[in-house]
């Protein structure tokens, strides 16, 4: 074999070798990536607080994960007993019955904490988040499970909306260990933020037994501990408000985050082409109509995230984002560009901090 031919064969052989090796390497990298989550993940799904609780725990200790799931369920069960508006025996129901009484009623630490936060957020949102909409909520019927909601009598709505007491209605005494509610105040209904509170409590419970990495998802309200299976962060998608199986983007850079989304796409009904959803505007008694379609808030606690998401939803895309910016939380408001939430095109407004975390894709990214 002469010199050039010899070199040619060598070259060909090297090429074949490289090709095979590269092929293996490429596939290997792909396979290796799924092996990064070498810590086991345990998933638990349960019913809690009228919705579903999903807990994902990353740990090598299976019994720890199971214990965490049990404690999580138990904690939510306990919290539900306190805040369930449909349960006449719940603490919140008895508190509502005590309206107008002279003496203050002592309340549990959970109730105290939640009420304290709720009133604080009512103040900073200038009443757009209102915890005393109990009668209106029952009137609209989104919380009941037995029959489909319908538009209530406008007169009744007007009466209830007008009668909502101002800030003086609820008095927290002795550092909120007891509460006095004035007679004209609306009934307390903290349905949404109770779930947020539940998520915060579950995260505390899990951390308390030594779990380092977990994700708690209670009906779409999310709290995390530690990091997810990519070793850097949990990856949370934001549901697209108008397209099934689509999300607007992924939040994956913030550790220890709590995320809540308020939207008009789950609890709603359509009548004559108009959408009636469950987020009521305290000023009118009707579903908030400033064109908001969904609000996502990332905050330091799920309770706060939920309350602010509700407030921002009511306030609309501009005021809502302004409120969130002023409080230093990250948020995204998706709204109908021309005000028509049914056929209108969507647009979004977000805090600067939120945009650094995620750039919303309004066309929607497929979940699967």
């Amino acid at each position, binding site marked *: 074999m002469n010199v050039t031919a010899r070199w040619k064969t*060598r070259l060909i*052989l090297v090429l*074949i*070798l490289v090709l*095979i*090796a590269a*092929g*293996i390497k490429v*596939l*290997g990298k*792909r*396979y290796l990536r*799924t092996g990064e989550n070498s810590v086991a993940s345990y998933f638990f*799904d*349960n*019913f809690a607080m*009228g*919705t*579903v609780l*999903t807990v*994902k725990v990353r740990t090598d200790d299976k019994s720890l994960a199971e214990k965490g799931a049990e404690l999580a369920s138990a904690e939510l069960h306990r919290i539900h007993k306190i805040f369930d508006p449909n349960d006449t025996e719940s603490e919140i129901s008895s508190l509502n019955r005590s309206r107008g009484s002279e003496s203050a009623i002592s309340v549990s630490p959970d109730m105290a904490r939640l009420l304290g936060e709720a009133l604080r957020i009512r103040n900073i949102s200038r009443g757009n988040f209102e915890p005393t909409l109990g009668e209106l909520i029952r009137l609209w*019927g*989104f919380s*009941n*499970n*037995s*029959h*489909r*909601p319908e538009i209530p009598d406008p007169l009744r709505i007007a009466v209830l909306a007008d009668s909502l007491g101002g800030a003086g209605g609820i008095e927290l005494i002795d550092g909120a260990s007891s509460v006095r509610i004035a007679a004209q105040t609306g009934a307390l209904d903290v349905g949404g933020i109770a779930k947020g509170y539940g998520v915060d409590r579950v995260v505390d419970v899990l951390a308390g037994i030594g779990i380092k990495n977990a*994700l708690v*998802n209670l*009906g*779409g309200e*999310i709290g995390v501990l530690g990091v*997810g*299976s*990519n070793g850097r962060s*949990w*990856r*949370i*998608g*934001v*549901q697209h408000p108008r397209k*099934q*199986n689509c*999300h607007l983007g*992924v*939040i994956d850079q913030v550790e220890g985050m709590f*995320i*809540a*989304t308020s*939207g008009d*796409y*789950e*609890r*709603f*009904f359509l009548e004559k082409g108009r959408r009636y959803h469950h987020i009521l505007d305290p000023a009118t008694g009707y579903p908030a109509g400033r064109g908001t379609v969904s609000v996502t808030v990332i905050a330091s606690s799920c309770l706060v995230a939920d309350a602010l998401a509700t407030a921002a939803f009511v306030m609309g895309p501009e005021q809502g984002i302004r409120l969130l910016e002023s409080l230093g939380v990250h948020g995204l408001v998706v709204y109908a560009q021309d005000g028509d939430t049914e056929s209108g095109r969507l647009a979004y407004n977000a805090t600067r901090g939120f945009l650094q975390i995620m750039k919303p894709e309004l066309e929607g990214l*497929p*979940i*699967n």
Partner: protein
Amino acid sequence: MRQRRFRLPRLFTFADLVLLLAVGGASFAFYGFRFWQDRFGLTEPGRLVVQTGERVVAQLDLSRDTTLSVEGVLGEVTIVVSSHRVSFVNAACPLKICEKTGEISRRGEIIVCAPNKVLAKIAGGGPDDSGGLDGISR
């Protein structure tokens, strides 16, 4: 032996080539096979676990198209399995949030009818994790 005849072996024989190609090719093939399996969820048959409240009432094989009616707290909920995808139809609940959830197909995903306390989750088999998402905020 002091005087060894030093016969220098060849650098790269045909047998070498065969060896390299065989080992290389075999691993490539095996890998590709596993990769393909993983991708199309054929490592294990997909399984749908359906529960009402705490109780598991059915485990469906996702590879077979089925329709199952489950009795919930308020009434019936119908679960449809079609082309490895699961959805809820005809649920006896006022807001039909479960129906609005759409289809699920990956391991770990769930659809739930909360008023009826009916939960369907995909366990085992199928590509895992909703496209890398650990949860959806909604």
